[in-house]
């Protein structure tokens, strides 16, 4: 690599630094100025053409609560609203509706939850546990790509 190229590279690094700063500033701005729509998703009142695929984001259990032996698993969805509405006809509703299934420690059958609230598991035995969460459509069919597994350990008392 010739010296010119090396200098050029240093120039790049400076530019990258500046651009990173701008990116960070933009991120901060975006976080501060997020509209209700940014955070809550589209209003349910207006149908969405070609709505993007549903997405499930699951957080690890809340650490302070896990230390007390309680698993509080928060989640959020994109492009799917959690509601107690079921059946074939509901598949055509837009914006999309569905609900949550979850399975504790490899159980074969899902627990169906239509509340949209944090999954709360209290009283699990100390030791490792696995909870699988998945989004399901209004006919209880799991939605591919919208499933997450959370592994955690309940401490000894």
């Amino acid at each position, binding site marked *: 690599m010739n010296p010119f*190229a090396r200098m*050029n590279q240093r120039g*790049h690094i400076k*530019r*990258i630094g500046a*651009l*990173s700063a*701008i*990116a960070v500033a*933009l*991120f901060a*701005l*975006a976080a501060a100025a*997020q*509209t*209700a*729509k*940014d*955070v*809550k*998703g589209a*209003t*349910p*009142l*207006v*149908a969405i053409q070609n709505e993007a695929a549903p997405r499930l*984001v*699951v*957080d690890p259990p*809340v650490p*302070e*609560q896990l230390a007390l032996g309680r698993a*509080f698993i*928060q*989640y*959020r969805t*994109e492009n799917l*609203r959690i*509601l*107690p*509405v079921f*059946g074939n*006809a*509901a598949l*055509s*509703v*837009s914006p999309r*509706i569905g609900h949550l299934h979850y399975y504790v420690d490899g159980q074969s059958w899902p627990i169906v939850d239509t509340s949209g*609230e*944090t999954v*709360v598991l209290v009283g699990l035995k100390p030791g490792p546990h696995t909870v699988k969460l998945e989004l399901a459509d209004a006919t209880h069919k799991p939605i591919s790509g919208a499933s997450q597994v959370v592994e955690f350990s309940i401490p000894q008392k």
Partner: protein
Amino acid sequence: MQVHSNQHRFAQLAALVMAACLMAAPGGAQTARQVRGAAAVEPIANEPAGMIVVDPPLAEPLSRGLVVIQYRTENLHIAPVFGPAALAVSPRVGHIHVSVDDASWVWADGSGEPVILNGLAPGPHKVLLQLETANHQELDRGAVQFTIPNDTHPAATHGAESRPASGTAPSHATEPHAKIIIEAPRPERLARGVVFLEYRTQNLQVVPVYGPAALAVSPRVGHIHVTVDDATWHWADAGGNPVIINGLLPGPHKVLIQLVNADHQPIDEGTVRLTIPQRSR
């Protein structure tokens, strides 16, 4: 070499721009907690002040005279939980009060769903959303101002009144008619100037699910429209909670509650006539 360098630089720039876009994108890599706030089951010490962010009405519905106002809160879960004891609940719970065009009265909404108004007269309007504690003390507020265009007419909107009532969609052939049963206002609350109307529905689940496709859902889904004192406009409520109105002037009033299907066509209705007593201060 120069070409390579430019490509290299372009790739770096592209990567940075993409990274910036991803970070700024709605909900990009944000955890559930970042977006939804602390879980309701997890008490928080020294929770920061509750705040509300109100979006302008959605443009396309507004062009049809339909006002849809989305909002979000921070450090406060919207929940239909009321009273002084609930002030101590952590994380904080509360609700919104909504008022239109500087009216003396508000309605309370603990559903967390967007505020939906239809039938406002053409011209400028203002809607105020007040973020309230569970005991109705204001924490924050956000107002939106907008103009209903002239060329909207109830018939051109999703206005229920323009269409025949069709409570029974084809798929509901065997499902009994939907009904709304509204109880008389609670006298002890009315004496304090608060209109508290409990209702229940039969053969219809109140949920925020809308549109023609939802007409085929069985069991039937829908929501209510509420009109006060023969106003041209109503608000929609899909929360299923009691209708709560506060601040109406002393004297006689009437509240019309329509049960509507997911496509806003009326199925059943009830009108409550009541008198707000003179305030004894």
